[in-house]
């Protein structure tokens, strides 16, 4: 039995097709995935991402505790700033990817993947010994809406949050929308400018309706998980469970940019990650475009010089490019680089694909 967000009935009224996702019944699309995709790239879209997890970490050892959990330097965060992180295990594998916000000294806020909430909390509790912290899973008390697209900032202004009061990229601010105190974060999963609105559950429907009402003049549409996937993959943003899991390290996943190379504090998996940074990795994530009209999908095998070299982790038709794009892990020893022609096995036939730079579509979210 799937859980439902508080917006379930409103979504069904709007014509949403509901599907199971990470234990939740979520809208996959309202009208048409391609139209919804273009709506976010050109105007602005509204996503219900209330299935995602919210965890507060507080206490006098909150900073030291988070430093132990992720390869990023959390001590560099100043209040109301955020950083993209990975929760790593002892082998450097990724238990989850998440955003850590510093709210104030000794108080942090984490947004984690819906499918990983229980694993994350268990892992944190196992790591808690010796740290004076409170791990407060508030996932069941908060709803999360994402407002994404080039007109998101103008819409936010229309909803009463002036440009000067809007947080910059990867920052969070408290704000008031339609009489409700919320947290407003300048983050998202589309590659566009946009916001995520963290709302106490009892106001979720109020804010949803208000965004839809005020969004009309900007061409706002509700957007389902189908377009969320095509949008994030065009921006080459990883999907946990597809592109990341407990066997992939941040370095293999192409996330070395996010890892603090000179972090002094010990963290889980540090020796493996430092060794991979110094000596290289045996497989790496690459982006590719199919040279035929057939989309590659998750788990399809990748070949190079007649040898299996890896697997596709994500693949979709890109509505922006009109081409089929994807991500795959390949053996580093096969010397596959940007420009290499690889093959993807689709229904027992090999089809050419070209390795290309990521992201597939330029991001426009740095404001």
């Amino acid at each position, binding site marked *: 039995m799937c859980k439902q967000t508080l917006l379930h009935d409103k979504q069904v009224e709007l014509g949403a097709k509901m599907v199971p996702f990470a234990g939740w019944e979520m809208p996959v*699309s309202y009208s048409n*995935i*391609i139209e919804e995709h273009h709506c976010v790239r050109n105007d602005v879209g509204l996503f219900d991402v209330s299935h995602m997890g919210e965890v507060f970490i507080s206490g006098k050892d909150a900073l030291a505790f988070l430093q132990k959990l992720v390869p990023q330097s959390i001590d560099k965060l100043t209040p109301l700033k955020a950083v993209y992180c990975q929760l790593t295990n002892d082998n450097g594998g990724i238990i989850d990817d998440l955003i850590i916000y510093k709210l104030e000294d000794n108080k942090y806020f984490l947004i984690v993947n819906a499918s990983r909430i229980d694993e994350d909390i268990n892992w944190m509790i196992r790591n808690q010994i010796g740290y004076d912290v409170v791990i407060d899973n508030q996932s069941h008390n908060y709803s999360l809406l994402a407002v994404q697209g080039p007109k998101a900032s103008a819409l936010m202004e229309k909803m009463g949050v002036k440009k000067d009061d809007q947080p910059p990229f990867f920052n969070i601010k408290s704000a008031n929308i339609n009489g409700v105190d919320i947290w407003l974060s300048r983050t998202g999963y589309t590659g566009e400018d946009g916001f995520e609105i963290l709302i106490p559950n009892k106001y979720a429907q109020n804010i949803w309706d208000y965004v839809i009402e005020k969004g009309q003049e900007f061409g706002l549409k509700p957007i389902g998980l189908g377009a969320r996937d*095509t949008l994030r993959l065009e921006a080459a943003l990883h999907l946990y469970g597809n592109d990341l899991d407990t066997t992939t390290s941040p370095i293999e996943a192409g996330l070395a940019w996010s890892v603090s190379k000179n972090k002094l504090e010990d963290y889980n998996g540090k020796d493996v990650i430092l060794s991979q940074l110094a000596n290289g990795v045996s497989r790496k994530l690459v982006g590719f475009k199919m040279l035929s009209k057939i989309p590659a999908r998750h788990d399809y095998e990748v070949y190079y010089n007649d040898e299996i070299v890896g697997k596709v982790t994500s693949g979709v038709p890109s509505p922006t490019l009109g081409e089929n794009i994807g991500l795959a892990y390949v053996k580093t020893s096969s010397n596959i680089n940007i420009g290499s022609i690889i093959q993807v096995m689709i229904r027992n036939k090999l089809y050419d694909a070209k390795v290309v730079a990521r992201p597939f579509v330029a991001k426009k979210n740095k404001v």
Partner: protein
Amino acid sequence: MTAPEGILCSKSHEYVLEDGSLYTIGLTDYAVEQLGDIVFVELPEVGATFGKGEVFSTVESVKAASEVYAPIGGTVVEINEKLVEAPETLNNEPYGEGWLIKVESDTASLDSGDLLEYNDYKEELV
């Protein structure tokens, strides 16, 4: 969407329509609605034969690849080439220009025993 007179539908959402000595096979309006935007259709070659229930085509939507099962057995005599260039035709006109294949079949009457008339098929969906 109005379905043509005389079509028979499978529970896996394919239809078959007798067309002279041939049988036209395609996907029901319900199927294409559920699939969403169709971006690629892989069709068998002319001359290929298959039995009832075998996979003869794959339809790719933005979301996923979906297999298409033969509602009756037969030999392919014509494929809808138009779908190669314009796969969205399948979304727009599943019973008209968006047909998939035409087959010859000696077993059609036997194979169609468990297929449903359109109205009964629609009722099954409720």
